[in-house]
C-alpha cells in the first residue's frame, strides 16, 4: 500500500500535444527524497536529458507537492517548482504557497511535470477529468494575478492556477511563477514555463490524502499550531521579514549601492518600524498557515505592494533608492511583471555601477533614482531598451559589457546575491558560495549561525562551516517535507521533531537520524545533478568584490574575507560533505546518494 500522505505517482504532461504519462514513485524513492525540493531533484535527475536547453522543448518543469500537503499541519500548503535554471544553467528549486498546493495534490499526484512546448500561448488544466490544453492568447501580457483570476472566472472558482507575467512570456531569465501573490521566485522558473508557451497551470482535484494515523496527526497539528504563536515567529507575524532592515543596517550587513557599502544612511525611511504605522494595510497569510507573515503596504498613490526584506533591500538600498513610494511601487511592478526582485535589483544595481563608471551608456540609470529603477524594471519585463541586456541577469550582462564589470557583478553561479553582505556574515559567505542553487539564502540559511551570538561573524572558521552544513541540512528537509522556514525557530530538536510529524502521516517509523541522512542525500543529489549539467569547481566561489574589498563595521573593525579564508572554508565543507577536493562526490558519497 502507498504510504500515507502520498499517491505514489507523478503526472508527466507533454504540453506539445497534451499527452500524458504516469511515472510511478516507489516507496523507497519517496522515503529517500520525501517530496518538494528533494523529490523534485530526483525527478530532474531522472527526466532531464544531458545537454537540454533550460528554455527548450526537452526541459522538464516539475511542480512537486509533499507528504504534508493536505494535512492539518500548519504551513504545509506549499509546493516546489524545480527545473534547470535559465539563469544559472544549474538546478533551481523554488517554493511557493497556498491553495495551488492543495488543489494540485488533490489531483491525485505527488508531482506534475510539464515537458514539451505548445505552439501558441496555452493554459494547462489538470483535474480529475484529465488534462486539457486551452488557448491563452487573450491572457498574453497580463500580470500573473490577473491571469489567475481570469482562469478562475472562465473555468470555475474551484480551479487554482500558477501563472507567469509578461516577464515569463518574454523569457526574462529571472521571471517567476506565482500563485495567490506568492512567487516561486528564484532562478527563472517563469521563463521555463514561458519557454513552453504556457501562461498558466491550473489544477482542481477531489482526491483526498490518506493519513496513516489521523488522530496522531491531528494532535501534532494542534501542538504545532500552538507553538507557532510563540516568540520564534513573533517577528514574522508582527512586522514581517522587513524587520531585518534596520537591524542589518546596524550590524553592517545591509547591501548598499551594489555592495559598495554595507550600511545605508536612509534605511530608516524604508524600515518596517516606520512604515508599519503609516503604510500597512493588510496582514495576511497563506492557506493552512497560522503565522500570517504577509504584510501589504500602500504607496501614497494607493498602489499596494507585498513587502518583504528581500524586495525592499534589493530595490531600495542596493540601488541606492530611499523613497518608500518608489520602492513599494517597484515591488508592485515586479509582482505585476513576474520578476524575481532580488535578481532584478541586483542586475539593475550592477548596471547603475557600470553607468557610474562609464562602462554603460545609459545616463538615466543612476543610483538613487527611483524613476530610473521603475523604468529599468519596465524595460526588463518587456525586453526593450537596456532591459534586453539586463533581462539576461548580471553574469551574462557582464560578459557582454566586459571591462572588468564581472568583478562587481553580484552573483554566484549566475544567481544574484540576497540581502546579506558575506564579508560581515562569513558563515553565510560559505553558504552562498557552495549552495547548489547559487547565491541563495533560503537553501543555506547559514545566516542563522552568524546571528546566533555563538560565532564571530567576521572571522570565518571551521565552526562556521559546520554550522552552515547544519543549516543547509535542515533546509533540505524543511523544503522537502515541506514546512515553512518561518517555523524553524519553534523546533528544539528539529530532525527528531520532524520525524515525529512525518511518521504518523506516512506510517513509516522515521527517526531524526534517518531524516538527517535524508538531508545529506538531497544535498548531494542536487550537486550530482549540477555536475551532470555543467557545474565546475570554479562555480563554488564568490565575486571578486567580496574578496578584494573590506568593509568596516561600526566598531571600526575591518570585515575582510580573504580568498585564502574562503578557500579553507570551502575545503572543509567539501571534506565534511564527503566530496573530493574538487567538490565532486566521492564513491562513498555517491553510494549514499544513489541508494535509490
Amino acid at each position: 500500500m502507498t504510504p500515507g500522505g502520498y499517491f505514489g505517482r507523478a503526472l508527466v504532461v507533454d504540453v506539445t500535444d497534451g499527452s500524458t504519462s504516469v511515472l510511478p514513485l516507489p516507496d523507497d524513492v519517496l522515503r529517500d527524497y520525501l517530496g518538494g525540493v528533494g523529490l523534485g531533484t530526483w525527478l530532474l535527475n531522472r527526466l532531464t536529458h544531458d545537454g537540454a536547453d533550460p528554455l527548450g522543448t526537452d526541459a522538464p518543469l516539475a511542480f512537486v507537492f509533499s507528504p504534508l500537503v493536505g494535512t492539518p499541519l500548519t504551513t504545509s500548503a506549499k509546493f516546489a517548482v524545480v527545473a534547470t535554471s535559465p539563469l544559472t544553467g544549474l538546478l533551481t528549486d523554488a517554493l511557493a504557497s497556498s491553495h495551488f498546493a492543495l488543489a494540485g495534490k488533490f489531483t491525485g499526484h505527488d508531482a506534475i511535470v510539464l515537458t514539451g512546448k505548445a505552439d501558441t500561448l496555452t493554459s494547462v488544466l489538470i483535474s480529475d477529468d484529465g488534462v486539457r490544453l486551452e488557448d491563452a492568447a487573450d491572457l498574453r501580457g497580463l500580470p500573473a494575478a490577473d491571469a489567475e483570476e481570469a482562469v478562475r472566472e472562465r473555468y470555475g472558482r474551484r480551479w487554482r492556477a500558477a501563472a507567469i507575467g509578461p516577464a515569463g512570456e518574454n523569457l526574462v531569465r529571472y521571471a517567476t511563477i506565482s500563485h495567490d501573490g506568492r512567487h516561486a521566485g528564484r532562478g527563472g522558473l517563469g521563463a521555463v514555463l514561458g519557454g513552453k508557451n504556457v501562461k498558466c497551470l491550473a489544477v482542481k482535484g477531489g482526491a483526498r490524502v490518506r493519513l496513516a494515523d489521523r488522530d496522531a496527526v491531528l494532535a501534532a497539528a494542534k501542538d504545532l499550531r500552538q507553538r507557532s504563536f510563540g516568540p520564534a515567529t513573533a517577528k514574522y507575524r508582527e512586522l514581517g521579514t522587513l524587520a531585518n532592515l534596520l537591524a542589518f543596517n546596524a550590524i553592517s550587513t545591509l547591501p548598499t549601492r551594489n555592495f559598495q557599502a554595507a550600511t545605508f544612511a536612509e534605511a530608516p525611511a524604508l524600515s518596517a518600524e516606520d512604515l508599519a504605522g503609516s503604510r500597512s494595510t493588510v496582514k495576511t497569510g497563506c492557506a493552512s498557515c497560522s503565522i500570517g507573515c504577509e504584510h501589504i503596504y500602500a504607496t501614497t498613490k494607493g498602489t499596494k505592494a507585498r513587502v518583504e526584506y528581500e524586495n525592499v533591500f534589493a530595490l531600495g538600498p542596493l540601488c541606492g533608492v530611499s523613497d518608500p513610494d518608489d520602492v513599494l511601487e517597484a515591488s508592485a511592478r515586479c509582482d505585476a511583471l513576474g520578476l524575481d526582485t532580488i535578481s532584478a535589483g541586483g542586475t539593475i544595481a550592477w548596471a547603475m555601477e557600470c553607468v557610474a563608471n562609464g562602462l554603460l551608456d545609459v545616463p538615466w540609470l543612476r543610483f538613487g533614482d527611483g524613476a530610473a529603477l521603475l523604468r529599468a524594471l519596465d524595460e526588463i519585463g518587456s525586453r526593450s531598451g537596456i532591459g534586453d541586456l539586463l533581462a539576461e541577469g548580471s553574469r551574462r550582462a557582464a560578459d557582454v559589457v566586459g571591462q572588468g564589470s564581472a568583478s562587481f557583478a553580484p552573483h554566484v553561479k549566475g544567481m544574484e546575491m540576497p540581502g546579506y553582505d558575506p564579508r560581515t556574515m562569513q558563515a553565510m559567505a560559505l553558504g552562498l558560495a557552495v549552495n547548489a542553487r547559487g547565491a541563495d539564502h533560503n537553501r543555506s540559511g547559514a545566516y542563522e549561525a552568524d546571528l546566533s551570538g555563538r560565532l564571530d561573524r567576521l572571522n570565518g572558521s571551521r565552526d562556521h562551516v559546520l554550522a552552515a552544513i547544519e543549516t543547509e541540512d535542515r533546509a533540505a528537509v524543511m523544503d522537502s517535507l515541506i514546512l515553512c522556514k518561518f517555523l524553524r525557530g519553534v523546533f528544539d530538536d528539529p530532525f527528531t521533531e520532524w520525524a515525529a510529524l512525518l511518521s504518523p502521516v506516512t506510517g513509516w517509523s522515521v527517526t531524526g537520524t534517518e531524516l538527517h541522512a535524508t538531508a545529506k542525500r538531497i544535498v548531494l543529489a542536487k550537486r550530482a545533478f549540477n555536475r551532470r549539467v555543467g557545474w565546475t569547481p570554479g562555480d563554488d566561489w564568490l565575486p571578486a568584490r567580496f574578496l578584494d574589498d573590506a568593509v568596516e563595521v561600526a566598531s571600526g573593525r575591518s570585515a575582510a574575507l580573504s580568498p585564502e579564508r574562503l578557500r579553507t572554508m570551502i575545503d572543509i565543507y567539501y571534506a565534511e560533505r564527503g566530496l573530493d577536493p574538487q567538490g565532486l562526490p566521492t564513491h562513498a558519497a555517491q553510494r549514499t546518494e544513489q541508494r535509490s
Partner: protein
Amino acid sequence: MTYTVYSMSAVAGIVLAGGRSSRMGTPKAHLEWHGSTLLRHITGVVGRAVDGPVIVVSAPGQSLPELDPDVLVRSDPEKGRGPMQGLAVGLAAAAEHAETAFVCSTDLPFLHTAFINAVLRGFHADPDAGWDTPPEMVLPIVHGFRQPLAAGYRTELASRIADLLAGGHDRPGHLVADCRARMLTEQELLADRTLAALDPQLRAVRNVNTVEDYQDARALPAPDVVVERFGVLATAGRGHRGPSRLQAANLASAAGQLGLTLNGHIVAAVNGDHIRGDGGWPLQDGDTVAFLSADAGG
C-alpha cells in the same frame, strides 16, 4: 568536537589570575562584579578586543569562577614565581594561535577595549617614532608607573622569559631590559581619540588590591551605554525603542532594564560588531547595544 582555527595574524588575550590576593584577603578572581565575577568580566573585556583566544593562567590548584566556554585555562607549573612565570605559560600557550598578545592581571575592573586597542596599535611599525620594525613588547607608562600587566607582548618572547626565569631573573623589568620594548606615554596613549573620549583618566590600569579599593570601585555606577531595539523588539518591553541611555555592566542587565530576556530568540549587537546572546557579556562606557531578533532571514 569542534574547534576554532585562528589566523596566525590573530591577537590573543592573556589574563593572569594566579596572584595571591593577600591584601584583599579573598581571591580577586571571584570578586563579585555587577552580577558576575571580576575574572569573568575581565576575560570578557579582553575577548572583545582580540580576535584570537583568551587564555587564563591560574596558579596550581587554584579554583576559578565560571568562565565563558571559549576561554582557555592554563596552569602555572609551580607556585610563587610571580607574574613572569604566568607570562611565560600564557605566551607559550598563545603562540599556538597568535603572534601577539595583550596581557593583563585580574584586578583591573575598569579595563577598556579602547585601552587594549591603543596598546596593540603600538606594535605597528612607526618610523616617525623610531620604530622601523615592530617592537617585541609595548609597555604603557601610566600615572608614573610602568604597566607590564596591561601591556602587549610578542608571543615568541615566551622562550626568552623562560630563559630569564631559569637564570633567576623573575621580574618584568628584566624582560624590559632584555627585549625591544616600546614605551607608550599617557600622551601617546591618549592620542588615540577613542581612548581619549572613553577613558581620559586612563582608569583602565586602576587596580584593586584591598577591600577598600574594591568597595570604592564597586560603588561607582555601571557603564553608561546607549541601547536600541529593532523589529518587534522596538515595541516589546519597556520604554521607547531608542536610542536611549542606561547604566549596565552586561547584556543581561541592559536587556532586563528594557523588559527583554536574552532567550535565544533575542541577541545583542555591541557597537555594530560582536553579536552575543549570553547575558554575561560585559559592557563598558560608550557602548551602543542593539537588541535584535535572532530569527533573521526572509
